[in-house]
């Protein structure tokens, strides 16, 4: 079984090499048989990976514990569902899963485009095969999933980590991989276009849908990760700027930038070199993300561990890939340099340029800040921590700028907006923004970032509403139907645009959810039965503690009642589960009460069964459900944008397109339907922390160094309910506060004891580079943008008039007929 699997991997590697060689040779010699053989080999690779995958899954199902990987991530008591999905639970299997997905995606891409882009196909095959070969090589020489125990075969497995035994954790990796792997396809197309020199828009059109699908899966994957962190880890938050979280975010930024800038190329033929570079960068970032997770160069809750050999292999591959890709960009520079014109700053093109600038600013900042501790240690020798407060602080301005741009972009005209134009377009949205902003101020909101966020959200919603309304009216005029039909027809005729607008609304919802976290309330209490804790407008009364067992785990559940103004709202049951064979890693079952306005969130990190007492941490998270709604709406909007051209025309769409989107939608339904609220529904005496205490807890990093420690601030550590390493530092902090020390003294004392890494926001002159450099680079980027744009606008408009040759009137009439029939 294990040798079969290993030989399949070896065979896959050889076949991949064959495919690459055949395709390139066939393309160079223009020999059809060679190319066809290469394509066949590509399909063969997919078939072999399917066989290899089924071998490993079979091994999991039958409990073949002679294979190390199976032994590590499964045991006989594990439910079937988790046995199947342990395939991607560990490092080796996840690499094989990556190759499997890539081979399937690649085969689909080749099959769909086999007639339309014949000249590109051989090179696409070659590129994707090379990537697959790299990952296969990793497995063959270093991380073999089929590796066996040489001597004693264990009779049972270790079992999957209980933290991973839940629905979200099963779905989150494949969704993320689908996103990452999907982004390889646009890269392959882009490189093929560069290599062959066919640099017109055709490669863009081929990859547009792929990029959207991959982007969708990446977004959903990130969302699922956030939901998991929120519901399973129990620290009350959903994003902690963990290096690996950031690694997943980076290609998302660049892919979003790419999706926008292709529109400029399609409309105006501009930004061709930029688009190609973006697609290369996106692919590089997906590799980089994989590398970060698996190499151990950053400490993270996601880390598989340290692996220098793996790091080296990845580094070599990434560097070679960059040299190869950008080498071709330089080689094809003459073809990529088109005449560009930017007529005005107040134009849609300029808005897209700004959009790209800001998204890359986000990506650059996150990347730099994530790598800064490593960088700083190399330069100064001091280990520092760049924690969530730092990210939250510096990302807010950038995020707000992005939000407002989302509203401005659609309002600007192509080429140039006149003043009358501007007035006409901007009045309503600005009014909306002012209205919302005024209301928030009137309601007493004084946090500037949240207030601005609400105002900008109002602005964006105003823009999008106006777009839908006016578009429907225009269509009503031209087609003479009623408003509703016009609206549906509008969306049907411009799926990409209006799907995109829906996605923008989803982004607004996300930002609203993020803004809510500024009003978070936290409380912790030690409660015996009958005691109550107060938070916000809620009163939580602890009733009892029960101990039950279901054969797989022991469950300690607290029975709590929530009251508001004396009226009982609901009962909630926070719990801790101790799984067999993993009693040292109990899971925290969070109790959440969800409403649109806020979440009541109760966690029980500690308990005393003999006393029936529970030590609970209660959080009120305002507006957090808008984040999940935002993700749902994002998926919906993307599906609309992805629909084939003929959908809504009630005609049968072309099968490959329809099949692609149908599969994507089915997959998404399968993923998101069961993801309906899973957390249970349904636990002081007192510890009332002072404001200063909370503030300092946000600034001090836990240095417990336990297994899986992620170096989070004391108040925010996702490992908190399980790990109690923060107790020592919390006690110390309490002592300092009791002594009456000021914040600065306390922080200095901590630094003296634990080193500079204990501070969440790096201090010191060198460390201020952590934000100075990205912001500085962004400023430079902006200047470069302005300079390039000015250069473009001063060029004489060559060929602009040259394209209008006198049309044959008969041809013109035919064209008008066809245009009319199109609708």
């Amino acid at each position, binding site marked *: 079984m294990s040798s079969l699997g290993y030989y399949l991997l070896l065979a896959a590697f050889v*076949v991949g090499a064959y495919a690459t060689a055949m395709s390139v040779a066939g393309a160079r010699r*223009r020999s059809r*048989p060679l190319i*066809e053989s290469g394509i066949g080999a590509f399909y063969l690779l997919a078939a072999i990976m399917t066989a290899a995958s089924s071998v490993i899954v079979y091994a999991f199902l039958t409990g073949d514990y002679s294979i190390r990987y199976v032994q590590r991530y499964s045991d006989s008591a594990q439910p079937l569902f988790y046995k199947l999905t342990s395939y991607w639970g560990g490092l080796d299997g996840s690499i094989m899963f990556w190759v499997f997905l890539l081979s399937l995606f690649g085969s689909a891409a080749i099959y769909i485009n086999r*007639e339309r882009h014949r000249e590109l196909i051989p090179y696409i095959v070659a590129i994707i095969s090379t990537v697959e070969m790299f990952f296969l090589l990793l497995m063959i020489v270093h991380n073999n999933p089929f590796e066996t125990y040489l001597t004693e075969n264990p009779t049972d497995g270790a079992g999957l980590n209980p933290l991973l035994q839940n629905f979200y954790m099963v779905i989150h990796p494949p969704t993320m991989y689908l996103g990452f792997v999907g982004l390889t396809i646009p890269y392959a197309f882009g490189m093929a276009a560069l290599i062959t020199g066919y640099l017109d828009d*055709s490669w863009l059109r081929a990859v547009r849908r792929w990029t959207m699908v991959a982007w969708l899966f990446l977004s959903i994957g990130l969302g699922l990760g956030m939901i998991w962190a929120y519901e399973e880890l129990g620290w009350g938050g959903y994003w902690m700027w963990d290096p690996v979280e950031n690694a997943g975010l980076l290609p998302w930024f660049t892919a979003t930038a790419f999706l926008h800038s292709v529109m400029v190329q399609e409309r105006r033929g501009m930004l061709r070199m930029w688009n190609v570079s973006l697609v290369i960068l996106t692919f590089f970032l997906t590799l980089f993300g994989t590398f970060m997770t698996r190499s151990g160069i950053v400490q993270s809750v996601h880390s598989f561990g340290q692996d220098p050999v793996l790091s080296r292999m990845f580094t070599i591959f990434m560097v070679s890939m960059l040299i190869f890709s950008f080498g071709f960009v330089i080689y094809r520079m003459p073809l990529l340099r088109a005449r560009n014109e930017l007529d005005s700053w107040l134009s849609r093109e300029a808005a897209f340029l700004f959009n790209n600038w800001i998204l890359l600013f986000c990506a650059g900042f996150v990347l730099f800040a994530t790598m800064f501790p490593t960088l700083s240690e190399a330069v100064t020798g001091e280990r520092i921590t760049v924690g969530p407060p730092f990210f939250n602080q510096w990302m807010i301005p950038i995020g707000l700028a992005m939000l407002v741009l989302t509203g401005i972009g659609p309002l600007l005209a192509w080429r140039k907006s006149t003043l009358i134009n501007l007035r006409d377009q901007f009045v309503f949205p600005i009014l909306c923004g002012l209205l919302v902003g005024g209301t928030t101020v009137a309601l007493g909101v004084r946090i500037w970032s949240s207030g601005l966020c609400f105002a900008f959200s109002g602005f964006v919603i105003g823009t999008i509403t106006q777009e839908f309304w006016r578009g429907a009216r225009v*269509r009503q005029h031209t087609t003479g139907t009623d408003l509703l039909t016009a609206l549906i027809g509008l969306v049907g005729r411009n799926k990409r645009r209006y799907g995109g607008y829906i996605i923008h609304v989803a982004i607004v919802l996300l930002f609203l959810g993020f803004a809510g976290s500024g009003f978070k309330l936290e409380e912790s209490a030690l409660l015996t039965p009958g005691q109550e804790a107060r938070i916000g407008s809620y009163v939580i009364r602890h009733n009892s503690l029960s101990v039950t067992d279901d054969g797989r785990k022991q469950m300690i559940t607290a029975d709590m009642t929530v009251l508001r103004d004396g009226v009982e709202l609901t009962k909630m049951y926070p719990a801790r589960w101790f799984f067999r064979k993993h009693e040292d890693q109990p899971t925290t079952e969070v109790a959440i009460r969800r409403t649109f306005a806020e979440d009541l969130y109760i966690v029980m990190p500690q308990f005393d069964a003999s006393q029936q007492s529970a030590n609970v941490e209660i959080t009120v998270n305002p507006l957090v459900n808008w984040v999940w709604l935002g993700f749902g709406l994002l998926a919906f909007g993307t599906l609309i944008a992805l629909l084939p051209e003929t959908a809504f025309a009630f005609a049968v769409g072309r099968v490959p397109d329809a099949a692609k989107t149908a599969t994507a939608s089915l997959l998404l339904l399968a993923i998101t339907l069961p993801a309906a609220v899973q957390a249970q529904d349904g636990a002081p005496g007192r510890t009332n922390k002072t404001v200063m205490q909370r503030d300092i807890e946000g600034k001090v990093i836990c240095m417990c160094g336990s297994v899986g420690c992620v170096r989070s601030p004391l108040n925010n550590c996702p490992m908190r309910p399980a790990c109690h390493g923060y107790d020592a530092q919390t006690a110390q902090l309490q002592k300092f506060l009791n002594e009456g020390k000021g914040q600065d003294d306390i922080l200095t004392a901590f630094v003296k004891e634990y080193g500079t890494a204990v501070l969440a926001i790096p201090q010191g002159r060198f460390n201020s580079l952590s934000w100075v450099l990205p912001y500085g680079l962004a400023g430079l980027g902006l200047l470069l943008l302005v300079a390039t744009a000015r250069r473009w606008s001063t060029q004489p408009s060559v060929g602009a008039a040259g*394209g209008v040759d006198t*049309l044959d009137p008969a041809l013109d009439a*035919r064209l008008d007929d066809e245009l009319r029939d199109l609708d």
Partner: protein
Amino acid sequence: MSSETSTESQPSFEPWQLFTLAGLIGATIAVFMARGESPAAVIMISITIFAAAGVGIAALRTFLPLTQKTPSDGARIVGGRTRAALEREKTLLLRSIKELEFDRAMGKVSEKDFVEMSGRLRARAARLMRQLDAGAGYRNEIEREIAKRIGDVGVIAGSTKQDPAYAAERQSPDDVGRVLLSRPATTCASCNTSNDPDARFCKHCGHSLEARP
């Protein structure tokens, strides 16, 4: 897939059908042999066997093209722009024009810009339409020529040219075609060489072709 590459007509088995059948038989045997195991394991075995069948089909797809004696298809690959691709590009251009008109109605494009941008797009579309027309025209002419020539000599094979395309072309309003069609190939009376329809002297023996029986 494989049918594309096989040149001879196969009324019986396609290779991939053979593999699918082998896969089914293999899966049945394997499932029978493993009947004591859990359902999930049995399903996995079947899937593995099918995967193996898939490997076989793909392997065939890989190596069969190498055995085919088809000549280099360089022109098709380099040219790349099949008729379907041209049609598709035209449709996309038309949609772009429509989108531009919509933007103008929404006030996102000024009148002057609209005229210029749509003019450019229309010119491109017109060029494509001309290309599509021309391509169709030449193709028809070439097919007619071939049909005409093979139709005369092809009596040897015992098959007369009953090409429906040929028949259809007779109804085409193309004057040139009709002229060509109405002039059958001339055979020299003395040496029996087939000559071009507009030839006046035989290219082999030089005999005058004007007087015809």
